[in-house]
Every structure is written in structure tokens, then in C-alpha cells.
């Protein structure tokens, strides 16, 4: 059972690399949705887990939310904004690969510092910290506003991975509250993207630098 969860975590880490590599917006949205779904599944198949009702509800909600609703909403936004498919990044492909490897090393260093490599949690920490750093890196390096929303989603996935894996079970209400917050955050970002597109008829955030000292 637990080598299946190892397998899931490795797949999530691989998805991060694919995300760095891809420059097609539609593919990126699909990949992030897949990563969210995997996250939902992970909490079900985690070792030493007595399947309580709350975990099942939580994982199904995350599965539905991240797997289906967010991509649908983002596709709708993509259609409304009708921007070009391929996106140019602030940081070139080779350097971003190098940085993601660096992030991997940093997460291993952090995890090594905290837990003995033998425990399962060592691997969880690496995966979640690595995904968080990749999420941050995507926000920093991408130009299009939608890509930044995707970066934010990857960041959320990393953090959720940490909570699901560590089986920290807060009461149902709190879990739902967190998911609701993420949902509303993405929703409001989407609305703002509509306005940015209407106002500036482009959504390159690096051009949005009118407010400076």
C-alpha cells in the first residue's frame, strides 16, 4: 500500500518538471488539474490510514474541485480572454530546469535536517516543499496572469500534499473552509483577469508596472 503512495508522490514531482517545461497554456491547465486530482487520491491510499468518513469526503471534494471545476473555470477564462496559445517566459528553459533541480536539492536538505531518511514523512516533506517552491517559481517566472494563477494552484497542491500526507485531520468544517478559501481566491483572481484584459487588452503582468516610486 505505501509503495503506491510513494509512486503517487513521485508522479507529482514529475508533473512539476513537466509544468516547468511546457509552454502551452491549455496543457498546463490540464497538467495542474491532474496533479490536484492525484493529491485527492493520495489521502485515500496513504499507509496506516483508517478510512474515516471525513477523509473520504475531503478527498472527493478536492478531487472534484481541483480535478474538474478549476480547469473548467480556467478554460472558460482562457476563451473569454482569447490569448495566444504559446507563452514566453521571463526565464529561459535551461535556467528554469537548473532552478527546479536546485529547489529539489533545497527541499531534500530541509527534509534531511528534520527527519531521518528512513521515515515516510521524510519523503512527504521533500515532495510538498519541492512543489511549493516550484509553485513560487512559476509565479515568479511566468508572464501571463493565468499562468500565475496556475502557479498559485501548484503552491496550494504542495501544501495540501503536506496536510493530506501527514493525516493532520482538522474538523471537517475547517478543511472545507480552507478549500472554500482557495476556491474563492482563484475565483476572484479570474474576475480580476477579466478586468485586466478589458482594461489593458493584454494580461502580461510584467507590463503592469505603472505604480512605482
Amino acid at each position, binding site marked *: 500500500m505505501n509503495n503506491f503512495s510513494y509512486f503517487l508522490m513521485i508522479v507529482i514531482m514529475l508533473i512539476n518538471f513537466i509544468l516547468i517545461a511546457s509552454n502551452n497554456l491549455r496543457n498546463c491547465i490540464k497538467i495542474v488539474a491532474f496533479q490536484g486530482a492525484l493529491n485527492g487520491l493520495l489521502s485515500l491510499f496513504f499507509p496506516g490510514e483508517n478510512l474515516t468518513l471525513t477523509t473520504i469526503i475531503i478527498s472527493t471534494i478536492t478531487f472534484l474541485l481541483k480535478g474538474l471545476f478549476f480547469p473548467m473555470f480556467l478554460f472558460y477564462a482562457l476563451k473569454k480572454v482569447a490569448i495566444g496559445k504559446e507563452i514566453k517566459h521571463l526565464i529561459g528553459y535551461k535556467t528554469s530546469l537548473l532552478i527546479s533541480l536546485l529547489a529539489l536539492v*533545497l527541499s531534500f536538505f530541509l527534509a534531511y535536517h528534520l527527519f531521518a531518511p528512513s521515515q515516510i514523512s521524510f519523503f512527504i516533506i521533500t515532495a510538498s516543499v519541492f512543489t511549493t*517552491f516550484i509553485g513560487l517559481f512559476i509565479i515568479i517566472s511566468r508572464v501571463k496572469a493565468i499562468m500565475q494563477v496556475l502557479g498559485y494552484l501548484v503552491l496550494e497542491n504542495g501544501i495540501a500534499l503536506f496536510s493530506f500526507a501527514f493525516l493532520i485531520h482538522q474538523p471537517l468544517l475547517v478543511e472545507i473552509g480552507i478549500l472554500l478559501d482557495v476556491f474563492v481566491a482563484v475565483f476572484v483572481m479570474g474576475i480580476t483577469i477579466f478586468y485586466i484584459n478589458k482594461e489593458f487588452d493584454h494580461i502580461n503582468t510584467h507590463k503592469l508596472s505603472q505604480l512605482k516610486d
Partner: protein
Amino acid sequence: MILMLFSLVFFSLSMLTALFTNKKIWLFSMVAASFLGIAAATKILINPINNTINIPWHIPLGNFSIEIDALSAIFILLICLFAPLYAIYGQSYLNHSDKKQLTIFYPLLIISMLFVVMAKNGFLFLLSWEIMSIAGYFLITFEDDEHSLKSGFIYLVATNIGMLFLLPFFLLLGNNNLDFQCLSGNSLIFLLGFIGFSTKAGVFPFHGWLPKAHPVAPSHVSALLSGVMIKMGIYGILRMIILLNEPQIIWGYICIVLGVFSALIGIFSALSQKELKTILAYSSIENIGIILLAIGLTIIGKSKDLPILTILALTATIFHIINHALFKGLLFLGAGAISKATQIKNINLLGGLHKKLPLLSGLFLIGVMSMTAMPLFNGFIGEFFLLLASLKGLLLGDFFAIIPLLSLCFIAALCFMLFSSVYSIIFLGEERSSFKLSKIPSPMLRIMGIIALLCTLFGTLPFVLFPIIKKAVFLFLPNVDIATLQESKTTLYKLSISFSIFFLVLMTLLLIRHQILKNRKIVITSTWGCGYDKITAKMQYNFSSFVQPIAFLFQKFFFHFSNHNLKDLFPKEENFLITPFDFLTKYFYKPLMEKLLLISEKTKKIQHGRTQFYIFYIFLTLVFLLLWKGQ
């Protein structure tokens, strides 16, 4: 003490009268309050009993403790003497403009100064110190034009910097609830306090604001500022010396060196100015330098345990504080009267005012004569005792005292040159430019008359002030024996004897003159121009040409000569100009400002507007914290 409280109540009452416009009540409450203040101070001076009030004040650090000892009584007398005089002068000077700004902030300034002088608790002191500065700001920017706003701003920045030094000073000085306590001499505390107080007093490195702020304010306000408010800085330094009761000798040397510098800066920059009130402001810096010399000598006397030297130097300090307030006030009021009558600021365009305004010129002459320390007037007493103290110091073997001796003599001579030429250029000779003369309202002249009378009184009969000095000396040297005090008392008497002889001889000579010249024929002709009869008023000597020989000697430091372009055979028209050259602003303040603005330009680069970089900053701080504190 109750009298003092009543006077404070009356002052605040006058503040409230600002709401409804009639001036009578405002003036009446001001005068009544000052009389009460003077009565309280004299009562305390005679027998210092029940002069403390101590109320626990629900503030984390402060409690409301006031005490009037000899030193504060002297300053209370100073404040309460000048407040009503300048208020009455101000009424007619500003021809009853009903601007509220003055009626509110003038009494507020007086109240806060009284509290500064009486406060025995750090918190109360800082509170009144700050209110005093703010009230001073609103009085300086009374005219509300661009120039006064700029100088008011520089004034506020200077007081704020002073405040920054006073905060740690009072925290180190007071125990946990900031009450003043006697401490052993600790140089750090002295330095903090000295810098904090000297920014208010206008001592050498921090004097930049004074020549800008005082000329801009209305004359009676600038008289109050340079006569009384600067002395609050001096009061602070004196109070600090009493509190740190074993002063180290090095403090004395610092005071003397800074005193010499500020006096030199003051007098030389005054020599190159054009406007009367800026000249008077710079000469206040010079007089503050002289007072600092005297304070330096007191510190040396106290640390080397020479009671005679301390007594003489202390008499010099207190005499000069009181006298400077008197004659500086008189001169500023005179300057106000001149600018009101002629509406001209540049003194090189004035001239021949004596014929039209004889009374004003007489009063201004008394002010000038006491400013240049002429024997019959009160400026002389302060400088006499300072020279005497430095001579006594030399006699007793402390050879550092030669510096105050020589520098004071040099400065007194320069001040003599400055004010003799200023008086004669404004009042004597021909009118250098045609200006319409308006009448000066009589209350202004009456006030100036009272102050001039006080100047001559303290000048000719200096022993009148001796009881005050005696009380102050006991404060500084608690266990001094009367004999040493006696010596300076006899000098005072001898001085007044020689002055009376001077007066007698003058009277006899004038009588003889009257007898001889009674029936002599008088012929009126034009001034002798060695044969050239078309002499014009412009050919007279004006202020910068009068100063030219000395300016030529000190050209590199303080004066900037307009370059001569007498090139061709028959040179056309040529003019000669001395412009002030302030090396402190050129080499210290301006570069400092440019550097600060440069750094601020660089820091602005951080806020460049791109979201990606902002998040990169967050990422960086996260990584930095993990590395720094992660272990």
C-alpha cells in the same frame, strides 16, 4: 508657589481670549500673569520655602514634579519681564491684524517656557520643550509666505534633531520614573545633553537654523526668540552642570572651544550680511558663544575646585544672559520700528534717519552701545566679568583660560566694528535712497524706552543684580564661604563708583560747553569734499565698504569678494560686493543632503513595480531565514 500657579492660570486665560476678538482682555491677562510671575519668582528668591509641587501623574514614566530654585527663578524673572512688554509692542507693531495665530501661540510659548524652567521630571521637561518648539514654529511662520515657511521648516528639523539627543539623555539621567537625580559626572550623558541643548541654543555646528528663522518672524517674536527662547538651551546646560555634580575638566574645554567657534562664525557672517535682522540673529549666535565661554570657565573652576574662578565665571554667565536678553530685545524692537517706518530691509539703502526719528535713533544708540559693551551700559558688565574670570584663571595657573581671554577681546572688537557701522549707516549721514517715512506708533517707542532704561540701569548700577547672583552661586557651590563672594561685590561697587565719576566729568564738560558756545555764531555749510562740490549721497561709505579692510584679511573663510574687472584703459562702471560665504553649509550640510537624497534614489529602485520581483523578494527572505535561523 501659589502665585506661580495663578500666573500660569492667567496666561492660559489669555490663550482662551483668542477665541473672541477684543484685545483688551488678552493684554490685561498677559500683564497680570507676568506681574504674578515676577512676584512669585522674587518671593522664592528671598526665602526659598515651599517651592515644590509633586503630584503623581498617571503616565507610564512621568510624574508632575515642579520646583523653583534660584536658577529657575532667574529665568522666570527673565520670561515674565519680557512677555508683557513684547505683547504690547506686538499689538501696535502688527497694526491690530486679527490673525488668531499670534494670540494663541504667544501665550502658549510663554507657558511652555515657564514649565521648561520649573520641571523636575524628564517627561514633563520633554513635553514642555516640544510644545515650546511647536509654538515657536507657528510664531516664526506667521507671515505665511514661501520664505518663512522654508526657514520655519529648517527650525523644526533642528529642534527635532536636538530632541533625538535629549530622549536618551533624560532616560540615562532619571531613574525609572525620569525624576532628576544627581549623578556622578559621566561624559556620555554630558555629550548627549550638551548636543541636545545646543541645537536649541544655536551653538556652532547646529546654528544653521537661527539666522534663517529669526529675521522672518515679526520683530517682537524674534526678540522673544533670540532674547529668551535661546536661553532655554543655556538653562538646560546649566541645569545639567548642577545635576552632574562632579564635572570633568574636558567638558569645560569643549564648551570653550565650541563657544569660540560659534562666536567667530556669528560675528564674521554678520559682517557680510545686508539685512538688519539677520545681522542681529547672527550676533545672537556670537553672544551665545560668549555665554558658553563663561559656562566653560565655570566648569573648569568647579572641576579644579577654584571657588573664586567659579563665582566670577558664574556672575559673568548670569549677567550676560540677562543683559543679552535686554539689549538684543531692544535692538530687535528697533529693527522692527525701522522696517515699519521705512519698509526697507537692506540697510545699505537707509541713512539719515536720526534727523527724522530722533527718539528711535536715541533708543537704538543705547542698544548699540550696550551691545558693543560700552562702559556705561549693561553689555559691558557681562564681558567685564568674563575677562576678569579668565584673568583670575590665568593667575591661578590654569593657562587654558588664555583662549577665552583673547577670543573674547577679538570678538568684542569685531562686534564694536559691526554695530558702530550698522548704527551710523542707518541713522547718520545722508539718505542713500528715497523712501517714504511713516510715523511709528508711540506705544512701540514707550516699550523700547522702558527696556533702554533697564539697560542703562543695570549698566551703571550693576550691584542691583548681585543678590540674584549670590543665590545662584549657592546653588552651584553649596558650601562656599562668604569672603570669596565679598570680592566680586566690591568690584561691582568700584565699577559703579567709576561710572558715576564718568557721569560727573561729562556733566561738567557739557556745562562748560554750554557756557562758552552760548552766544557763538554758527555757520552751516556742506560737508568738506576736499574741493569737489557735487557730492552725492551714494558716495558715502556703506556697510560692506566699511567692513572691507577686515573682510580682505579673512577673505578665504567667511567672505566672497565680487571679482574686479578693471581691464581696459578707461574702465566703465564698476561695483564692489561682499557676499556671505558659509563654509559650514558648503562643506558639511549640502554634501550630507546630497548623499541622503542619493541613497533614497537608490532605495526607490526596490519599489520598481513588477509583481514577479516582489514575490521573488518573499522567496529570498524565506530562503535567507531558513539558512540563517533554520538550524
